[in-house]
């Protein structure tokens, strides 16, 4: 499949940044392309596939069983990737555990904004264009997401200094 050959590595890198698990990243990407094989009318461009991987990773993290497994077995070597993906909040850095707890509280769009901003390093303008919201709405939702994250920190979730 041409799209897999062309975009597979980029999508694997993204899923690994999010899940800190090579095996789960591989499963997410493989699952996506297997579905694409079933429905050839689905777009195959990288921005679309990037979003699809975000949704699938968040779905995995929302599932309690998968969440527990990922938190217990994550591959710490993936933390050292270039420009390490993380939720940098004020002077703190929240890890995979905080992300996992956050996504449970967020809806689809908020979760996507969280990933696009903190893990994909997109600007608010880029996120707005990708999701189809106004930049102002994205900014507002991003502030809400940050407020939830601060609330997690205030409630004693584990964080490390950035």
């Amino acid at each position, binding site marked *: 499949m041409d799209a897999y050959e062309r975009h*597979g590595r980029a999508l694997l890198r993204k899923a690994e940044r999010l899940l800190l698990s090579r095996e789960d990243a591989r499963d997410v990407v493989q699952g996506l392309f297997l579905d694409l094989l*079933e429905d050839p009318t689905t777009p195959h461009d990288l921005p679309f596939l990037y979003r699809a991987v975000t949704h699938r990773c968040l779905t995995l993290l929302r599932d309690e069983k998968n969440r527990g497994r990922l938190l217990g077995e994550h591959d710490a070597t993936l933390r*050292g990737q270039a420009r390490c993906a993380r939720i940098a909040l004020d002077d703190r850095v929240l890890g995979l555990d905080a992300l996992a707890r956050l996504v449970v509280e967020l809806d689809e769009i908020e979760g996507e904004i969280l990933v696009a901003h903190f893990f994909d390093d997109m600007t608010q303008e880029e996120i707005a264009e990708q999701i189809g*919201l106004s930049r102002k709405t994205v900014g507002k939702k991003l502030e809400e997401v940050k407020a939830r994250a601060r609330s997690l920190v205030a409630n004693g979730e584990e964080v490390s200094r950035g």
Partner: protein
Amino acid sequence: MAEESRCDAPVSWLALERLALGELGEEEGRVRKHLAGCASCRACLEDIEAGVAAPLPPLKAGAVAAPLPPLKAGGGPRTADDRQPTAVRPPPLVPWLGGGLALAAALLVYVKTRPDEPRVDRTKGSTVSITVVREGAQGEAGVFGPHDRFKALVSCPPSLVASWDLVVFDEDGAQFPLAPVPKLACGNAVPVPGAFRLTGDKELSVCVVWSEDAPVDRAMLGPTDLVNRRKKACERLRPGR
């Protein structure tokens, strides 16, 4: 002596991936301009480009661990190009394939958990190297000035699993400009997170030190005789005029 930093307005990973694929279009000029002045983003692009030749796992039915529920459409207005990604169920597994996979998984678990399996990722010092690169402005290689900011790039075998620390040795001893790095995904020219400055009027060594067994112990890095026994890779830099 040093400080840590991140790129203030980084190029998104998606843009870097599309740049590497040659499909960024008219945005390319802006991104290339940013990359020329941002070592952090440049290192990310190099990371992506280094993985272009990496083998891709074959696309096979049965690779998906668990079926995912269909996605709900998100709220908010949509543009014509905004196509909500769909999550169609993966094709059903061939019955015998499931049994075969289970057997393969069991064998894998056995192989991975053999108690007497020797570790094969022990690494000699010579297989790790460090390159110190200046952020932003051009300058003479091997020389530092008061306004220069540097990043350290480490090349190490992917099989090496270790904790890392960056140490600057001068005649006063060891200094640690960056936070310790618990894990680094080894490869070619992998950036150590953070950037730092170098000061002083004497030649110094910028080293990366690693430990495969336990976190790098900074207390052991001060005296030179102890340092020499540690696994490290260094680059010498001299002050500019």
